[in-house]
């Protein structure tokens, strides 16, 4: 998805008003109640279809999954398992046994770090991440390194917020066991060339994990084309409920991995003499899963399938350009990261006001943005700032959101001038 392509894409095909109307929280109900929500990179709002699916499930056919013989439980189980197939369609792959349900991206990465990492990483081995990773794609590897004596190596980025491919390649050595990369940076919007990077890894026999938390909400993802071994994302960022997400993993890898958490559902048979485990994905889903959450995620994916995602991405790309231009016109405003393929996120600073002050003032004007380290402190350090202000988009964002942002930033400048 390059900017050049975007120009040709039919952004006009995308009816943002119709999409927006499906999000009750964005409804304009009374004076002063309009919400300009520009924090979708933290979490996305939910369409009515998802809210209804949860309500309907709890109201009419709630039951536990996998172990009941009775009809209600059979139906729950079928709906629950069907979501694995929806996830496959989302990721352009086909084997539902490769889809493990987790609490979210963070748990998915921890699962790999503990289970795969515990088995495959030893003292002296190396794991490569980049300078722009989210804490959730740093700390699990630090914990693994602590446990095993492995070493974490950091691929540098340039001031533009892009990973330097040569420097990344130079880091890959005989002891490199895994590379863990964001697909899209939550703090900068940088879209990493994950297919190329994973290919560099694979050609050396190095396993790869892609943190897709910020990519899945903004366009089509094809894990086979990327050529990664693991891919993680969170339902709550892709219009689904909180509390659930996905680890996709290549079946041969999942099958060879030891269990993560122990408990009900992940076993084949338990005895005090010795316990055997179920196959993947069940092996990694101990305990009662978030049945309603997963079914809600299924509703979100169904809903997404109805959207012309190419048109939505094109629209969003134009909106991002509109927003960048509007913000750059504000005196004293600096935007971080200039990847031409940037998606969804605009992080910035103002010379006169700290990001935290900006966020407070914007909030009083009805504009919700995020200020802080965006769970990417090493990136803040790289740019030498304690925090950034971040406005982020989703497919319900429109120009009125950007206009409200710009006007509230003017207010900020007034107060601080």
């Amino acid at each position, binding site marked *: 998805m390059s900017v050049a392509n975007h120009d040709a894409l039919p952004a006009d095909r995308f009816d943002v008003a119709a999409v927006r109307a499906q999000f009750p929280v964005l409804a304009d109900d009374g004076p002063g109640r309009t919400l300009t929500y520009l924090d979708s990179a933290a979490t996305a709002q939910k369409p009515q279809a998802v809210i209804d699916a949860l309500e309907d499930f709890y109201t009419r056919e709630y039951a536990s999954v996998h172990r009941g013989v009775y009809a209600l439980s059979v139906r729950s189980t079928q709906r629950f398992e069907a979501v694995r197939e929806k996830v496959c369609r989302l990721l352009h792959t086909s084997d539902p046994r490769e889809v493990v349900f987790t609490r979210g991206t963070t748990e998915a990465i921890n699962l790999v770090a503990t289970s795969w990492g515990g088995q495959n990483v030893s003292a002296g081995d190396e794991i490569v991440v980049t300078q722009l990773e989210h804490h959730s794609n740093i700390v699990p590897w630090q914990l693994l390194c602590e446990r095993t004596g492995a070493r974490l190596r950091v691929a540098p980025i340039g001031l533009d917020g892009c990973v330097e491919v040569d420097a990344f390649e130079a880091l890959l050595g005989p002891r490199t066991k895994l590379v863990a990369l964001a697909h899209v940076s939550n703090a900068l919007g940088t879209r990493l060339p994950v297919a190329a990077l994973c290919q560099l890894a694979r050609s050396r026999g190095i396993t790869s994990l892609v943190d897709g938390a910020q990519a899945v909400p903004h366009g089509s993802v094809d894990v086979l084309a990327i050529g990664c071994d693991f891919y993680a994302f969170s339902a709550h960022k892709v219009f689904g409920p909180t509390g659930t997400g996905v680890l996709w993993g290549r079946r041969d890898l999942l099958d060879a991995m030891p269990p993560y958490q122990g408990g009900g559902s992940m076993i084949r048979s338990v005895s005090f003499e010795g316990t055997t485990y179920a196959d993947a994905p069940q092996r990694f889903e101990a305990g009662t899963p978030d049945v309603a959450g997963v079914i809600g995620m299924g509703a979100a994916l169904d809903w997404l399938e109805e959207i012309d995602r190419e048109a939505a991405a094109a629209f969003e790309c134009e909106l991002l350009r509109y927003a960048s231009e509007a913000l750059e016109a504000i005196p004293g405003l600096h935007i971080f990261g200039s990847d031409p393929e940037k998606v969804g996120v605009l992080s910035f600073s103002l010379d006169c*006001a700290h*990001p*935290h*002050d900006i966020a*407070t*003032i914007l909030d009083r004007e009805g504009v919700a943005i995020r200020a*802080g380290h965006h769970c990417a402190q090493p990136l803040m350090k790289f740019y030498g700032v304690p*925090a950034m202000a971040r406005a982020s988009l989703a497919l319900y964002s429109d120009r009125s959101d950007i206009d409200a942002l710009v006007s509230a930033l003017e207010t900020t400048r007034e*107060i*601080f001038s």
Partner: protein
Amino acid sequence: MDDLRDLYQSTILDHNKSPRNFGVPADSNRDAEGYNPLCGDELHVYLRVDAAGRIDDIGFEGSGCAISRASASLMTEYVKNQSREEVDRVFDAFHDLVTKAPKEGATPESLGKLAVFSGVREFPMRVKCATLAWHTLRAALDQTDQTAVTE
């Protein structure tokens, strides 16, 4: 915008722009670091405490939002020459000021210029910004090695 003007009073904006007692006082004999993980505010407070336990001189360094910077600056002015007991008293009064609605009829402890922070109470997420300097000051007086963290 009224409560914004209440929050960002001119005194606060002034101390944010030109903080007083910025830097390390000569012969400082106690210090502590403070950290607000939410917004990345980092503060270092330095003290020269005399034999009687009074704050003889005080300074601070660090980066942070307008509220935390101005709070640190105004605090350094306020506590100079105070004893530990006086600091504790004003800490409590200040904490009440930024968190609680003013009690009817009650005469609040006089906080002088610090009263400009009364607008913070309408902004619960900013309370920690306003109190970080004070937590750090207490840590410096206790001279614990721990970073003061507002969470």
